[in-house]
């Protein structure tokens, strides 16, 4: 069953890639502009460090390390989870009805329906800043750390997809305007570009306990760069962080199922 789903998924993804690359110039411009626009986020980090120097015990490239991890995760989630981002159209136009009569779960169908290749731009720039940070910090990697890093990126991607799923689920009630969830997806990405420890208490708690953004890059970076949390968070939090994202997505998919059971078609 699982291999069949996977095979079908790759089949759909390939089809999406072919449509998106049909107009090559336009596609390359899209990727390049996605690269450029998202790389601007780093310009804030650069300009601020240029002006103020180090922040507590964080240097610019340590923040660049954080930035690289969250950018890759966020880019991947936008690439894979695009269907949930566009879900309001399915509700508004009533095309979700078609999905209900197919022999696959709606969650799976929405996931396979879209794949946004231009996000390679965001992922690429995140990767570049990550690699530069890595060189500047002269990191030494063990196999265990590499596996941990990959798991962290998977966990972070799951976390952001989870948020998009929650946003899409809201559409079952509101029909339109899921832009509200952008506060947590794009806003979370923006906030996560800097160490979460620098924010005010209420903000830090919100993005650690309610919306577990801190597990996407902050706790893992503490572990990988061998730093301590100034607010005394136990080191074990770092090691479980990949799991947090996966659990978050699992919970979101349950919320999604609840939403589907409350679905009323807008009709055609």
């Amino acid at each position, binding site marked *: 069953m699982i291999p069949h789903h996977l095979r079908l998924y790759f089949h759909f993804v390939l089809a999406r890639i072919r449509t998106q690359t049909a107009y090559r110039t336009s596609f390359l411009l899209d990727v390049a*502009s996605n690269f450029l626009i998202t790389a*601007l986020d780093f*310009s804030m980090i650069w300009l601020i460090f240029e002006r*103020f120097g180090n922040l507590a015990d964080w240097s610019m490239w340590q923040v660049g390390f954080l930035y690289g991890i969250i950018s890759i995760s966020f880019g991947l989630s936008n690439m894979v989870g695009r269907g949930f981002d566009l879900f309001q159209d399915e509700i508004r136009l009533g095309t979700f009805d078609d999905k209900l009569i197919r022999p696959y779960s709606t969650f799976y169908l929405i996931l396979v329906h879209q794949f946004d290749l231009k996000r390679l731009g965001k992922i690429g720039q995140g990767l570049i800043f990550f690699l530069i940070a890595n060189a500047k910090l002269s990191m030494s990697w063990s196999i265990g750390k590499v596996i941990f890093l990959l798991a962290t990126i998977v966990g972070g991607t799951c976390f952001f997809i989870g948020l998009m799923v929650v946003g899409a689920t809201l559409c079952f009630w509101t029909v339109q305007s899921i*832009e509200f969830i952008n506060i947590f997806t794009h806003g979370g990405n923006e906030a996560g570009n800097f160490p979460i420890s620098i924010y005010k208490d209420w903000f830090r708690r919100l993005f650690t306990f309610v919306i577990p953004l801190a597990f996407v890059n902050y706790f893992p970076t503490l572990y990988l760069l061998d730093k301590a949390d100034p607010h005394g968070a136990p080191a074990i939090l770092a090691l479980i962080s990949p799991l947090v994202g996966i659990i978050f997505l699992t919970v979101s998919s349950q919320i999604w199922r609840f939403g589907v059971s409350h679905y009323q078609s807008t009709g055609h």
Partner: protein
Amino acid sequence: MRVYLEFGRKSFQKMLQYRTANLAGMATNLFFGAVRVLIFTAFYQASTAEQPLSLHQVATYVWLSQSFLMVIRMWGRPEVSDTIRDGSVAMQLTKPVDFQFYWLADEFGKSTYFLLMRALPSLLFSIFLFRIMIPADPLTWLAFLTGILLAVVLNQSYIVAAFSSTFWTLDATGVGGFCFALQTFFSGFVVPIALWPDWLQQIASRLPFEGMINFPFSIYLGEVTGVDILVGFGKQILWIAFFVCIGRWGIRRGLTKLVLQGG
């Protein structure tokens, strides 16, 4: 002139439909403002060095730019590119109005909508909740409002020119992306230009973008005064003329080779 006012009014009315979207957008603007103010706060508190702007000034700058973002039409996408792509541009070309002024009027309607529905409420939040600075001198207010008005027109002539490039590319996302990136960075939206390294400030002052964000808000902060304000207005007006001319030229060239899409 009357007819363009009417186009502006129509575009204003169209925007009125999206009430929930506007609320969600306002919440997003405020959230991003909060994040950026918190980041600046952390850096100011960690550093003892004297800075060109105080934290209060930077916070005011951030809240103002978040409030006026949509009025200035930062990252605005004029629908001109959609009409070229789906061919409905043909209908519009049969009307006895100027193509470029039509789209400028359309953008102006949106700006007016966002001034009333987004900027004013956000500004009230900023004043009462976040205690931003309030200039005492009515002349500062006058200069600031003039600066904002010119910033709006400057940015509109910029995006209308950029999106008219759809005549050649059919798809504006790529070109639009580059234009937005230039604008976001060099307007001083990300970090106020006064905090930049000197060499980069030199570059920014030779470009049109600082007139979109940094200049009007620096008037508000009292960082630009006297003759410098008039010089700034002059620069804004020159750049407006530049983009209006580029846009006109591009549109005229584009129309001679326009192939209608769709049916």
